[in-house]
């Protein structure tokens, strides 16, 4: 057993209202640059729908993820190492910009500067790739809220695996939103696909990153990722992907998408897993067993043996504590309501989802029945095969068993908590019917419905205690464009040293902003010092200790490094 920690996310789909705030804030934070116009580290898809890029789930076509060889070993579905090298001059399985969408802007200038004329000036759409006029035919959210889906929905790869009568009926009964980020898989196919070795999984927290200095633009990662969450920056010629906002995570802050989520449906926390069994779990023979296999390698952080091994493997004490308080572990293994997205890709994804019950409730309520009644809901879940099969196609490789179990638990919680709200006792028999206790139902309700910031995001800071005391080290003066502006290197704006992400600066800033004292202890800002007195930290402490604080500064005014 080798214990490793993984920063993971769970999203509660019942609460997603499809507002795209996560996508927009993520884009503002990370991808609002030339070359990244079409890139959405976070996107929200309407399901059923085509997804982004279109039909990315169709692995017969895109060949992402892993497959089992006849001898039971794993290989990349798009072909192993030698095949990668043989196709390196032109990757036949890479989506082109048309599979995403051609980015565009509008000729806003015309609205202001058009000469006076008979007609109102219009801002024509202009391609950001060619600069020419273009007709907008697709974008990242073209089938949002099932818009135009009568034309396109039949191409949904998940639907295509279901029976036909279901597919035609589905639109009438069922719709939900699926926010997606990088899965930060335990067995990442993108990392395995990278010929340069530029992509890596961080040993400390399992975040999958692209080393921008080592990426050579071979684009195999784009093919390898079955979720199509590695993107090619067409300006710099390098791959970029969701970083799980690692500069924020390292200082204990949630990702931008989580922080700004209006429905508060995202949960962040650590899970411990057994790194030695990753390969075995991913090579489980039956696709429908992969969900159970992945759960089996997640380790119980309360198990003394696991804790002891975690300590031996160098996981810090506060990280073990964070793993024990992790909402992720609770949702996956205690309440068993979170499911992985497409476990059949064999990448062991670590962003999990609580499937939505609300479509079922809507159907029950619209048929005139009581949508909050336990028995009615249970019956509806068993009867409404359409949502069940579709959700199973997303989360359990088609096995409706686990999905049904989750929905029954959510229904039981719903029915039980209504009784409580009506002033009645919590009905233990409803909880027992789904294999839970009343207390568990209450706890789960609390976590899903009213958990506060610190309960939803249990993120231990990275271990940079040394760095925490630092002032900002330096600013980026490297190139033209001035301090921190990045600017162009010797071969245009995409060369030279990339604008640094100063994690430690951020950490230092956060520490300073949340500190009780006005400034970093032991530091003096000489610009604010009026010359009176002898502030702490101006001179090294006296070795005898007695003379310390002998002369407290007597000056007035709120100055840094002043009286303490």
């Amino acid at each position, binding site marked *: 057993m080798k214990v490793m920690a993984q920063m993971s996310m769970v999203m509660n789909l019942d609460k997603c209202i499809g507002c795209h705030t996560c996508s927009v804030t993520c884009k503002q934070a990370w991808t609002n640059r030339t070359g990244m116009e079409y890139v959405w580290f976070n996107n929200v898809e309407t399901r059923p729908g085509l997804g982004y890029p279109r039909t990315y789930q169709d692995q017969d076509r895109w060949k992402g993820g892993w497959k089992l060889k006849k001898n039971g070993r794993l290989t990349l579905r798009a072909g192993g190492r030698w095949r990668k090298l043989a196709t390196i001059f032109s990757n036949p399985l890479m989506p082109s910009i048309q599979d995403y969408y051609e980015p565009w802007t509008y000729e806003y200038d015309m609205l202001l500067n058009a000469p006076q004329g008979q007609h109102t000036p219009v801002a024509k759409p202009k391609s950001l790739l060619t600069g020419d006029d273009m007709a907008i035919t697709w974008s990242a959210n073209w089938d949002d809220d099932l818009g135009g889906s009568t034309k396109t929905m039949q191409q949904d790869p998940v639907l295509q695996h279901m029976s036909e009568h279901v597919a035609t009926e589905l639109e009438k009964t069922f719709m939900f939103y699926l926010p997606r980020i990088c899965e930060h898989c335990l067995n990442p196919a993108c990392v395995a696909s990278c010929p340069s070795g530029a992509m890596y999984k961080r040993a400390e927290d399992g975040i999958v990153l692209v080393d921008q200095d080592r990426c*050579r633009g071979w684009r195999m990662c784009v093919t390898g990722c079955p979720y199509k969450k590695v993107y090619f920056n067409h300006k710099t010629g390098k791959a970029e992907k969701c970083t799980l906002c690692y500069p924020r995570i390292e200082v204990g802050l949630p990702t931008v998408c989580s922080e700004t989520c209006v429905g508060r449906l995202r949960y962040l926390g650590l899970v411990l897993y057994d790194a030695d069994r990753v390969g075995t779990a991913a090579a489980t023979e039956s696709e429908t067993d992969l969900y159970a296999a992945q759960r089996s390698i997640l380790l119980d952080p309360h198990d003394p043996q696991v804790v002891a091994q975690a300590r031996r493997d160098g996981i810090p004490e506060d990280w073990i504590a964070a793993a024990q308080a992790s909402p992720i572990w609770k949702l996956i293994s205690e309440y068993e309501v979170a499911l992985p997205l497409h476990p059949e890709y064999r990448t062991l994804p670590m962003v999990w989802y609580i499937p939505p019950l609300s479509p079922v409730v809507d159907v029950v309520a619209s048929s005139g029945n009581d949508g909050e009644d336990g028995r009615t809901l249970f019956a509806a879940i068993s009867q409404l095969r359409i949502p069940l099969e579709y959700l199973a196609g997303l989360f359990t490789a088609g096995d409706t068993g686990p999905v049904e179990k989750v929905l029954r638990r959510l229904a039981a919680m719903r029915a039980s908590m209504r009784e409580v709200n009506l002033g009645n006792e919590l009905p233990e028999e409803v909880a027992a019917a789904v294999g839970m206790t009343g207390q568990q139902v209450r706890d789960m309700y609390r976590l899903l419905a009213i958990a506060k910031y610190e309960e939803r995001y249990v993120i231990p800071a990275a271990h940079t205690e040394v760095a925490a005391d630092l002032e900002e080290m*330096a600013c980026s003066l490297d190139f033209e464009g001035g301090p921190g502006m990045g600017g162009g290197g010797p071969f245009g704006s995409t060369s030279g040293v990339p604008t640094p992400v100063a994690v430690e600066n951020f950490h230092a800033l956060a520490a300073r902003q949340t500190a009780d004292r006005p400034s970093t202890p032991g530091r003096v800002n000489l610009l604010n010092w009026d010359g009176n007195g002898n502030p702490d930290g101006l001179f090294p402490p006296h070795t005898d200790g007695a003379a310390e604080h002998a002369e407290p500064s007597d000056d007035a005014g709120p100055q840094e490094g002043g009286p303490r």
Partner: protein
Amino acid sequence: MDVNVGQILLWGALPYVSFAVFVVGLVWRYRYDKFGWTTRSSELYERRLLRLGSPLFHFGLLFVFLGHVAGLVIPKSWTRAVGISQEAYHLGATYIGSLAALALVAGLVILIYRRRTTGAVFKATTRNDKTMYVFLAAVILAGTYATVRTQLLGGHGGYDYRETISPWFRSLWVLHPRVELMTSIPAAFAVHIVLASLLFCLWPFTRLVHAFSAPVTYPLRPYVVYRSRDERLGSRAPRRGWERTK
């Protein structure tokens, strides 16, 4: 054979200048501009023509490279010692080389056509790229012309560059350039060699550097790479004299 100053400069000095710029340039570029070291693929914009042109060009180039190694590095006496006659060598080199050149030129034409006619690809083409393309195409076309002119159409036996150009090339590496061998080579070869020297000067400063990141070690490493968080403070290595004290 008399050797004039121009010939000394061309065959005794230019190769060394070119090699120095090439090596120093590559080292400098690697140290200074790892972020800019990429293939700068345009496959995202256009796939159909690239699917045809790029493998043609690159595989053709690989064979042409191997041909150059065989012709320039391996002395005539060695091939004769293993029983390959000059006629057999000539036939092999000419026909394999011509096929490779055909693939190379066809690929180049397709790629340049694609670059010019696909709007997004053309817009992403920098001045640096265009300059590089001029030299690259000139070297390839001059080399192909030299092969066709002197080997295919040059009558029986063609031109035996292994008596002149190859020994000269090897003499460069022992720092004793035999300039006199180059005084009477066909003009087509001379143009090809001079243009190639200039291309090598340009190489480190263009996207051609991606040739040196051929991922030859990929089959040797485990699939999944783990790396530890960088413990360095700040995002850059501190300047000399500004390192943190423990």
